[in-house]
């Protein structure tokens, strides 16, 4: 039964990989890297695939919970995955948002402070935190789209100032909270961890919102040639503004997840350096830093790949001090495989042979 399950999983995975290759889907390369990593673990890290079904509860209701390393990967990748969804759209318009980590801290600080100091209801706390993220996004969008400041500089401002703002909100304290609803965001399970479900829902909703409407098309057009798109009557300013606001919103969700997960708002450490992981996920996913075509699901796969790498490294007892090196090498390989120049080189070698 177990063996059959494993075989079915790998067959489905292989078929999916084959399909993405056939349809020249960009998600192929990050997926292939992820699959290779899993195969490596299948052989060399026996405990990696040990899954366990446990009894658990979700607000009093009995629900099953899956435990195991792959589930940990999904759980931990969710924060970066959520960030990557927003970051993909920002990068697609030719921008970048360095402030997402700081915005995570602001959102977390907002939620915790309102809940503990003002004893507001959880729903209000969550909405206020999301609102803070949206306002942060509007600030970035204003600087980039309206004032015309280069995105790197504009978002650097909030990246630096954001943690200060978060400190102001928490009054320099680490605020610990116990509200069951707030702590469940980052800790509860509905068979799989709630953060993962949040990421999945965000991905699907974003995909629908960009592809069922023309927003995705216009984002790609603005990212590919902003001047031409503007001259064709598209308000490129509002498109850019919109994606920065959305990116701030995503950062706030990620902030809620992490704050909830550690049950405290630590303005100095929440979301620290995650902006770089998010950018990396998008790049691995195949969206060009210069803007244009974007691939949401592929970015999320990129986030999963980064986390799977990290987890594998821990499972193999690689010291956390040197772990970034092999991680960087794998990421480099994926990026190289996506580079036009390397592909052309490989193609010419193949033709010559």
């Amino acid at each position, binding site marked *: 039964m177990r063996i059959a399950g494993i075989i079915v999983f790998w067959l489905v995975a292989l078929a999916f990989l084959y399909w993405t290759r056939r349809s020249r889907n960009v998600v192929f390369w990050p997926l292939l890297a992820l699959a290779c990593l899993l195969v490596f673990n299948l052989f060399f890290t026996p405990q990696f695939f040990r899954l366990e079904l446990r009894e658990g509860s979700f607000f009093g209701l009995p629900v099953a919970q899956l435990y195991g390393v792959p589930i940990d990967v999904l759980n931990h990748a969710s924060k970066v995955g959520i960030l990557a969804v927003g970051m993909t759209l920002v990068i697609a318009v030719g921008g970048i948002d360095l402030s997402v980590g700081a915005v995570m801290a602001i959102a977390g600080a907002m939620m915790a402070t309102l809940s503990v100091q003002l004893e507001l209801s959880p729903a209000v706390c969550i909405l206020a935190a999301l609102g803070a993220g949206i306002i942060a996004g509007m600030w970035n969008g204003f600087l980039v789209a309206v004032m015309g400041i280069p995105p790197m500089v504009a978002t650097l401002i909030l990246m630096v100032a954001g943690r200060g703002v978060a400190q102001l909100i928490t009054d320099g304290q680490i605020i610990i909270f116990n509200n069951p609803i707030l702590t469940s965001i980052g800790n509860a399970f509905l068979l799989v961890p709630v953060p993962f479900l949040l990421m999945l829902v965000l991905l699907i909703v974003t995909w629908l919102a960009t592809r069922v409407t023309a927003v995705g098309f216009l984002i790609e*057009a603005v990212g590919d040639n902003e001047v*031409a798109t503007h*001259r*064709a009557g598209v308000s490129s300013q509002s498109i850019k503004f919109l994606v920065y606001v959305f990116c701030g919103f995503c950062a706030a969700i990620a902030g809620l997840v992490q704050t909830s997960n550690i049950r405290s708002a630590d303005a100095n450490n929440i979301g620290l350096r995650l902006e770089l992981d998010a950018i990396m996920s998008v790049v691995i996913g195949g969206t060009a830093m210069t803007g*244009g075509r974007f691939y949401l699901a592929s970015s999320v796969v990129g986030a999963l790949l980064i986390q799977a790498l990290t987890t594998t490294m821990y499972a193999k007892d690689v010291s956390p001090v040197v772990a970034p090196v092999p991680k960087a090498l794998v990421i480099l390989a994926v990026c190289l495989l996506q580079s036009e120049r390397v592909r052309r080189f490989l193609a010419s070698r193949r033709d010559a042979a």
Partner: protein
Amino acid sequence: MENDTFLELKGITKAFPGVLALDKVSFSAKRGEVHALCGENGAGKSTLIKVLTGVYPGDGGKIGLDGQTIVPTSPRNAETKGISTVYQEVNLIPHLTVAENICLGREDRLAGVIRWRRVWKRAAAAIKRLDLKFDINLDAQLSDCSIAIQQMVAIARALDIDAKLLILDEPTSSLDDAEAEELFRIMRTLREQGMGIVFVTHFLDQVYRVSDHITVLRNGELVGEFTAVELPRLELVSKMVGKNVEEVKKLEKRVTFTSVSGRKTVVSARRLGRKGAINPIDFTLNEGEVVGLAGLLGSGRSETANLLFGVDPADSGELEIDGRRIRPDSPARAMRYGFGMLTEDRKFSGIVPNLSVRENIILAMQAKLGPWRKIPSRRANEIADQFIKALDIKTPSREQQIKNLSGGNQQKVIIARWLAVHPRLLILDEPTRGIDVGAKAEIEGLIQKLREEGMSLLLISSELEEVVRNSSRVIVLRDRTKITELSGDNLTERSILEVIASQAKDDATKETLKCE
């Protein structure tokens, strides 16, 4: 003067996804000779030049220089082998000075320190060899110089390298007549000094002005090599488009206009202007009429168009559509009034290069609908297919990336983008620039068809012939000011030139050649 062949291209082949851009093309060049490369858009001229200068690797064939086989890997690499190229868009470094650009990458050094005095002297020597009638300031920043000067700097650079072969790819597209004349004089001087020159251009007159030999390409294939004096102009055109001479004669016929009086006014401008762009100007544009805008480079033609379309909004005067006051302050707003505009620089502000032909066609339509209501994909496909067929756009499929199409076909896609939104006023800024004779005739035919359907058109072109041929009324601009309006029997190329030249002929020449 030695007349031996020293550049030999044999059986050059190059394929792009879905297109065979070059099919076993051969080409040769001799010392001390100007060799013109002619062909329609998509004939493979640019591709041939790019293979020769190492921008793309060729898929087959041999390049021989001075009897040795060479494989250029990049334009810089080709330069070291003695092949220097001057593009339409000059590929020098805008923020460096003229002298730095001429010697860039080969500065004289002493222990790693650049010896600026020597660099400066070398640059001056190279410029001197051009034998110019005016001075070029070696310390001027390149971006402050006119395109003509920038091209001359690029040529001077070629001289400093001791290039054996100079390739001029559409050098005159952005030049006015006086500037082009100066360029031809330089070409003749260099030819006498024994340099081989390859000249790519769309202007057939210019081919005959300077060329000794003509090689014609069509659809990526070699049609033949001819001696310029033995190939009459009409025959050259017929070889380029692959039609016989009689058919070509028909293409060149001038359109006759029915009377335009009594037509309904669509747009009227009163004292419309913008500081630093165009002085207050009055004009009206009517239904079913093509109005031309003529003037030299920098006379305010594109500025007027940008004013109307809200790219650089007016800061004075009034604009009315159907008697209603309007203020187009952005292209999006202008589109709501029923304006459309084909921009001058296709690459910079026309195409969205990595998106498909379909997406490029529906872009303006989608912009008009706003981001939330998407055009259903079946409808988008229909629209794209319909325009690909109607305008005879040559593309393997509607999903092809537009950057893989030839210039003329890209231009047709952008026209389709505007036709899809049914504008009342369509502004065409240089619609046939960088486009071959065949596509040009098609686009001109289209302009007349749209006029007959009642559209109002504003046509800008630096080719007076084209403006005169297609417009029933021409607004003549000089120094950012409207001088006069010509129509009916008064409207000839000669009359326009006379108006432009009436006062400030010398000033105009100096103005455009000067390094600011």
